[in-house]
């Protein structure tokens, strides 16, 4: 096993090194460093978007979600992702249209320009910081749990996370966004190959699809229908999750920026359907692994199930490749998000190019340290924590949509999003209830936000018409 691990890790790290080398330019501007020259084609764009989207939470969280909550997990993620890529067709166009008019350095700076208010920029930055830090920490936590369970006593738990963050820092500081895009492409391919090998092996060990579902039926028939054995996949949960996931490109800056830095609209559109296909291809084998887990390890802990299904039940080279694949998946999401936080901070700065570049690099280092510390305190509920992060960032969606739709967006959207974000944070802290009239808070909040946002936007549109 160790020999195979060294072999695959050497290839992987060699490719990362080559990606950094290709991306490095001695006298580059901060624009080249942060926005990769805004010339990313469809294939690289699709791989970087997919690698940033499908992370350790997909690789590890989804098999566990299928095992624990059943087949409704497909609707929770795959269907929501499909809706998101359809939405990208319009959103990518509208975003690029506005970005071409007012310029783009990052979502926070973009909002500041569109609303003519520094507060708009700060709101986006605070929301990103508050909800991306836990999300990145989830990835790191996920890989640490897995490696710790797989190789007990080999290294202290925290050191796995530290190694990952160190690799991420080195190559992102050398190559900037371009290096991250190249490495995402490598990681996307590795992840797809590995998850299919493991998925098919698990399906075979479960006796093929029909026998697997029959055995799941015998173990726990509630896994084969909604809302699942623990009642998680209620209609409210699925609808609220779909809205939160559709809004990811609106409210998570690492995705918004990727839409702007692509070569042209055609590339964005090709990327959109390619991500949809990739989503189906990546999530399907996680169902095979999850159903296999439901049959063989129904009562095991998350860490035990994952280390058994992904490592010890696999042939040695496959297990080694799984470790590298997981590491790659985690790395790609982590680097995308930490780099995005640096980009957001930089878009709010107004100093010289050299100063901005230095400030961005230092901020990426500081964000990495915060994430590393935070990951030690996370719980093991990877998917549910990821969903909280999606929901939290989506509270600023009215602000971003307003900026994309209107030339002079209504400032009332800033108040609305600030209130929604504040209330959601208070509910997480347990200061206000997380249910309203017995309904899930996020579901109710989406309903209210959609209604008020529509009213504000229609009123603004009519006012603008009257003025002109």
């Amino acid at each position, binding site marked *: 096993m160790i020999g195979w691990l060294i072999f695959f890790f050497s290839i992987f790290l060699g490719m990362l090194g080559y990606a950094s080398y290709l991306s490095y330019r001695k006298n580059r501007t901060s624009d080249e460093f942060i926005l990769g020259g805004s010339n990313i084609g469809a294939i690289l764009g699709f791989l970087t978007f997919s690698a940033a989207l499908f992370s350790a939470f997909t690789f590890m969280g989804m098999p566990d979600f299928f095992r624990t909550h059943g087949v409704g997990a497909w609707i929770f993620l795959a*269907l929501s992702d499909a809706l998101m890529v359809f939405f990208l*067709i319009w959103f990518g*166009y509208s975003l690029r249209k506005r970005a071409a008019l007012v310029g783009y350095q990052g979502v926070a700076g973009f909002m500041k320009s569109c609303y003519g208010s520094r507060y708009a920029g700060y709101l986006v930055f605070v929301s990103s910081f508050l909800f991306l830090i836990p999300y990145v920490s989830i990835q790191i936590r996920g890989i640490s749990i897995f490696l710790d369970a797989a190789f007990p006593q080999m290294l202290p738990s925290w050191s796995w996370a530290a190694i990952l963050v160190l690799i991420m820092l080195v190559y992102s500081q050398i190559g900037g966004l371009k290096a991250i895009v190249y490495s995402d492409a490598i990681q996307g391919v590795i992840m797809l190959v590995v998850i299919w090998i493991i998925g098919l092996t698990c399906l075979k060990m479960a006796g093929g699809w029909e026998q697997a579902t029959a055995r799941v039926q015998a173990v726990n028939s509630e896994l084969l229908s909604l809302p699942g054995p623990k009642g998680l996949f209620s209609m409210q949960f699925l609808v609220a999750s779909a809205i939160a996931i559709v809004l990811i490109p609106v409210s998570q800056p690492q995705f918004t920026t990727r839409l702007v830095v692509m070569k042209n609209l055609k590339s964005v559109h090709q990327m959109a359907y390619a991500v949809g296909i990739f989503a189906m291809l990546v999530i399907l084998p996680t169902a095979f692994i999850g159903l296999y887990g439901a049959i063989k390890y129904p009562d095991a802990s998350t860490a035990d199930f994952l280390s058994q299904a992904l490592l010890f039940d696999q042939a040695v080279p496959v297990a080694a490749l799984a470790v590298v694949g997981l590491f790659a998946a985690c790395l790609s999401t982590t680097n995308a998000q930490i780099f995005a936080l640096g980009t957001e901070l930089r878009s709010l700065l107004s100093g010289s190019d050299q100063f901005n570049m230095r400030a961005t690099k230092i901020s990426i280092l500081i964000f990495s340290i915060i994430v590393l510390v935070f990951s030690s305190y996370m719980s093991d509920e990877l998917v549910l924590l990821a969903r909280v992060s999606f929901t939290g960032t989506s509270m600023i969606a009215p602000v971003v949509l307003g900026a994309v739709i209107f030339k002079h967006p209504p400032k009332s959207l800033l108040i609305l999003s600030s209130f929604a974000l504040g209330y959601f944070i208070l509910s997480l802290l347990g200061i206000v209830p997380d249910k309203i009239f017995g309904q899930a808070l996020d579901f109710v909040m989406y309903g209210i936000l959609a209604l008020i946002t529509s009213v504000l936007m229609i009123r603004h549109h009519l006012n603008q018409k009257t003025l002109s």
Partner: protein
Amino acid sequence: MKLKIWKILVLFVSALCIISFLFIFKENKETPELYGVPFIFWTGFLVTFLIVVSTYIASRIFPFEDPKKS
């Protein structure tokens, strides 16, 4: 013509979502199965597939020009 197809696609995907969440994805429904695949899984897969195909068509007929080009 492209604008018309785009509007139809948006309408189709919106209607598909509403119908799916309201009438197809019902709780405790396991049948009819399709080749041993539980009802929720195969219908969820089918709806996902249809939306991805709609995305592909939308990418081909999207009626507006690239803003950066214009």
